[in-house]
């Protein structure tokens, strides 16, 4: 993760005379540096204690926004998660206790509306 985060996005505050002609992106990794987490209206939340680490959410996430460490899902990369909810749809685990964040029964990953107050830093 630390290596990926060094990638540069085209600078957001560049005046029009200084943007790259034709929109050429001449540095790699701009999609990492480009923050799409702000698009999210729903936020996925995981109950880590009840998660079986099947990694299906990690496989299915279309934005590679579920980082893993030592073979286990670490949480969510909220800087890039667009809140599409595919992880929730794909999560196969029905929890036995109420979800630690939402208090609801259902799946390990559940969606809640964004309040607008949350920061977009990585979970945990």
């Amino acid at each position, binding site marked *: 993760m630390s290596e990926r985060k060094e990638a540069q996005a*085209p600078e*957001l505050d*560049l*005046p*029009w*005379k*200084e*943007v*790259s*002609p*034709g*929109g*050429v*992106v*001449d540095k*790699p990794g*701009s999609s990492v540096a480009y923050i799409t987490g702000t698009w999210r209206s729903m936020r996925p939340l995981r109950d880590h204690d009840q998660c079986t680490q099947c990694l299906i959410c990690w496989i299915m996430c279309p934005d590679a926004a579920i980082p893993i460490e030592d073979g286990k899902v670490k949480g969510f990369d909220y800087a890039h998660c667009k809140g599409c909810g595919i992880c929730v749809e794909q999560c196969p685990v029905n929890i036995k206790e109420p979800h630690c964040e939402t208090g609801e029964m259902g799946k390990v990953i559940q969606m809640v509306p964004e309040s607008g107050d949350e920061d977009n830093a990585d979970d945990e």
Partner: protein
Amino acid sequence: MTSNRSRTFVLGEKKEMVESTYLALDGANAVSHAMRQINPDVVAAYPITPQTAVVQNFSQFVADGTVDTEFVPVESEHAAMSACIGASAAGARVMTATSANGLALMWEMLYIASGMRLPIVLTVVNRALSSPLNIHCDHSDSMGARDAGWLQLYAETGQEAYDNTIQALRIAEDSDLLLPVMSCQDGFITGHGVERVGILPDQTVQDFVGQYVANYSLLDVENPVTMGAWDFTDYYFEHKRQQSQAMNESMPIVEAVSAEYEKLSGRPQPIIDTFAMDDAEVAVIVLSSAAGTTRSVVRDLRNKGVKAGVVKPRLFRPFPAQRIVDAIKNCKAVAVLDRAISFGSPDGMGPLFLDVTSALYNAGACDVPVIDFIFGLGGRDMTPPMVESVYDQLMQIRDTGDRGDIVRYVGLRG
């Protein structure tokens, strides 16, 4: 962002005039020869009347091994421009040609080429857009593309079509510009009309166009880049403003290339061609082949003592507003001849008229009465008597001060 390549030419560089060899060529073939001499890396094209002759002749040069161009016979004009964009993004020097509905099918890709700042040169052999189906000349095709971010040159003759093609490439590829250029000529009238065309020596053209070194190449694996990327609310506006500025600042580049080519060929390359305009009271502004007919009529009128003149813009995009205003501001009546209609504009005006009157207004020169004549749609002949009738109506406005109908038609029954 600064350019990391050298310019393809040096301003003010002195070149001696080089003698041309004269051949009997039609306008389309003249462009084929220009393309042969340029020897572009890639030509992707699809046949359509009356452009077909351009790439048909050129493909013969490819088959004969006269050029080493990669010729891509694609399945449509949309594919043609798409292939041109891909090749240009790869760093190649790219040319193509089309007409009418072929240009219309390229529409989506025209904007992508200009937005990506790819210096593609496109010959348009002007033809009426369907429907009704017609293969003959008017300017509805290229005029519809006038806001697509391409520079547009209009040729009166096969000679000009040849000369413009060579200049178009240098203009497009200028490292300070990097915009695509459309080089237009009238279908059949110019495209299939055989005339005496002066051809520069091959090496002279090669030296003039130089070698194109793209700023970026998709094939450069050592320096990978992304082109045509996602450009959302936070970048797009800035890129479009910058693209607009490139067009706004393109005039000095067109002038410099024209001046150098003029010196090289010995043929004048004005941005706007003015004839008998110094003391003209009645004047006509017209693009392309009809300018020749108009000039001939003006000679006769001048012999009869009528102070008549003609303005023929060679460049339409960027629009040479100040030059046109300066040329006509002292006239007593001016007619714009439009070979296209901008449907739904006030009274169905033509695109050239809209820009001319806009230029006059913005220059504060609102006293010149200007009227618009729609002419020659679908290849309708513009004969000398028709041009005379235009000047007759201008003289009436000059004498009465009554502008009358703003949009008129010439050569139309009823």
